């Protein structure tokens, strides 16, 4: 499995979990970002993700490299979906393994927080009466 991956196909969080298993690991932490049916009380029909793929993969790799180094992880996998993603489906999966759970929890949180700040991927919320690029305006 590719550890750093962007695809318009459905993500597989269980396969990502399997990919980071390690005999030395005492814990695996997996974050699965799923598509919510509403934002600020307004019904969302679906999301549409767009990526500057070449750069997004580089930035995702940097996050994984930093996390592995800083928390001495055995491994980290980051998968992100693009295109139309339905309510309830997985938009992002981050899995990591470490000797002890604390490091894996911290690394996983760092990875999703940093991804949201640096990785060139854009999310559009589609409503019944229009659509909006998330976070575009202050």
């Amino acid at each position: 499995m590719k550890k750093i991956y962007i695809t318009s196909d459905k993500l597989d969080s269980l396969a990502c979990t399997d990919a980071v298993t390690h005999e030395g690991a005492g814990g695996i932490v997996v974050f699965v970002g799923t598509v919510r049916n509403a934002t600020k009380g307004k019904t969302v029909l679906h999301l549409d993700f767009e990526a500057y793929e070449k750069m997004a993969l580089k930035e995702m790799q940097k996050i994984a490299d930093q996390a592995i180094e800083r928390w001495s992880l055995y491994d980290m996998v980051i998968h992100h979906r693009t295109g139309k993603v339905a309510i309830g489906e997985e938009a992002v999966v981050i899995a990591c393994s470490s000797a002890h759970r604390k490091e894996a929890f911290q690394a996983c949180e760092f990875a999703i927080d940093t991804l949201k700040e640096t990785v060139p991927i854009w999310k559009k919320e589609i409503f019944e009466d229009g659509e909006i690029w998330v976070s575009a305006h202050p």
Partner: protein
Amino acid sequence: MNMNIEIIAFGIAKDILKGKSVQLDLPAGETVSGVKKRLITEFPDFQSLASLQLAVNAEYVDDSYVLNENDEVVLIPPVSGG
């Protein structure tokens, strides 16, 4: 001598440009800062964004970066992955 550089857009930047890219005729030695000013002048809607960054050859660059003719220049509006 001037250089012609294509600026590629994603997300809301595409909507503001009303297209996937824009060709700019820039003076040699133009910086990222200069390109941003030029874009805001020609497309004032860029000013309303929470941030506007440029990536060159798939890496973030700061405002002082001097552009070269063969650079791949991409407009990065506020990201919202995850």
